[in-house]
């Protein structure tokens, strides 16, 4: 598919396979997905793939979601990647914002809520004056990741 290269890459980090699948099902075929089941895998994959967007659960094995978020923000190539924190820990919202989350979605969520958040963040990224990051690096990373 010619549009495949243009599809943004989304990194989905959740230890729960059914929730990763839910995110994929909700967001559909318009994106390329990379998946990680723990925090360490999420960081490795993020550096490999340089995704256009990260959907991050906070309660991850090995390295917690908050730690993943903080390390992403310290990584110069990944600092600007939009991150949607999605968690059942509603009380973790404050620390998620502090660590640099762009959106906070609590489980359970409405499919439209997630779709709206993803589209908004990716539109902003596309519309901004940083096309190399979201466009070039993203598609290149997606190719490597898959």
């Amino acid at each position, binding site marked *: 598919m010619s549009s495949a290269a243009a599809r943004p890459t989304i990194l989905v980090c959740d*230890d*729960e396979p*059914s*929730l990763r*699948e*839910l995110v994929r*099902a*909700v967001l559909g075929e318009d994106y390329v997905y990379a998946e990680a089941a*723990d*925090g360490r895998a999420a960081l490795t994959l993020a550096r490999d793939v340089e995704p256009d967007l990260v959907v991050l*659960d906070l*309660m*991850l*094995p*090995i390295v*917690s*979601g908050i730690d993943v978020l903080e390390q992403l923000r310290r990584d110069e190539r990944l600092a600007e990647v939009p991150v949607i924190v999605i968690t*059942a*820990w*509603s009380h973790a919202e404050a620390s998620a914002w502090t660590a640099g989350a762009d959106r906070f979605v609590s*489980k*359970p*969520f*409405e*499919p439209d809520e997630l779709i709206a958040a993803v589209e908004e963040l990716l539109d902003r990224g596309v519309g901004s004056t940083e096309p190399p990051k979201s466009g070039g690096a993203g598609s290149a990373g997606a190719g490597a990741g898959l």
Partner: protein
Amino acid sequence: MSLARRMLLASILLALLVAGAFAALMFAVSTLRDANEREAHSKDVTAATLQLEKLVVDMETGLRGFTLTGNKGALQPYTAARGELPQRLRVFVGRAFAEPDQGRRAALISQMIGQYVRGYAIPVIELVHESPAAARSAPVTLEGKRQTDEIRARFDRFLAEENELAREAASSAGSRSDQALAVGAVGVVASSVLIVLFGVLLGRAVGRPVRAVASGANRLAGGELSHRLPTEGPGEIGELTRSFNAMAEEVQRGHDELELRNAKLRESERLKSELITIVSHELRTPLASVLGFTSLLLQRDFDPQARRHYLGIVDAQARRLAALLEDFLDVQRIEDGRLELAQEAVDIALVLDEQAELYRAQSPKHRLLLELPERPLTVRGDSNRLAQVVGNLLSNAIKYSPEGGVVALAGGTGDGAVRVSVRDEGLGIASDQQSRIFTKFFRGEAGASGIGGTGLGLAVSREIVEAHGGRIGFSSKVGAGSTFWLELPFAGAPAVKSSEQGRSGTERKETQP
């Protein structure tokens, strides 16, 4: 002996001592009074003696003058003395008879005077009338002189005796009263000292323990609940301190009980908030899948294959919710003592086989090994509950192991028990958390490291195993993995064992791969 009785006894002894001292003083006084009386008596006796002696001298003088002169007038002193004589004699003898010896002497003197009057004076007077010359002759006058001299000598001896007696009486009275005075004085001094001493001792015996109790009560009131008084001390004091200690004990017990209850309340409060957190998370995760996929299925048209797949996920997550609910209910049942167990013969080998099969299917990424002996591992109990325990242990072993990790499940017998072990090569349990691992809602590092679970599995498992009369335990090392084991009383009938052995062994071999 009680303090009151001691005090009573001491008071009685003191009273006796005071009474003794008083008696001694009384004795001294009465002795002195007796001595005075004796002295007065002695003076009376002496006076009576001297008066009587004067009469005798008067009589002799009158008689002498009369015999020499023949003049009747010269006889006058004799006549006067003679008139007075009977009364004086009675007084003399009467007084002298207070002392028996003196009485006898006085009687003799009285007899001699009577002899003198009747046997000499009266005949001489008659002789003067008849023959004045004969009366004047030497023998006659000498006889009168001899008799009066003898009487006067008796008087002298009598007086000397009297003086001696009076002196002796005075001296013995003096020494006796001195002794009595000394005894009395010593008694008074001793009882004064003893009364003071008694007061001091009483003050100490009562005052000191009372102060100790007061200060003890203050310390107790100040929160020093472990403070106790020494319990020695007589009677009421010992009783007082014992009562105080009993009270302190009671206060401390009550306080400790409250403290314990408080701690329990705090703990249950903490557990409750933990439960709410865990429940909200544990329920939300499957709920998120269920709601998310049903929303999607309602909103979009998927092809039948995808729809089936998503419905399968919804089904699995809904079952997970149901199982979670069941765990909570189990905890509730156990807490209410309502956990009901079937009592049937259960072959643990079959249970292990089934569970191994189940978890192999659920977690294909782990290597699950099963090792069983070739004979039934029969126990009595509830097969569903025992399967739940084995399932919990397997689920934990898988959950805390990396993908591809080995989980080894084994069954066997020994020492009249069926033993099951589940070994993993996972994270292991830190030694400071090992003692709490069976506490409900306790999850160690699992919460922080993002491993899901309610912290109920092991708590429920232990209750089930113990309700079967068994034991559950583990050994673990951080980074090297854990081995959980359980032991249940072996119920295999020896007679049936040999016949069943081969059969069940082969059966198991078929299901094992």
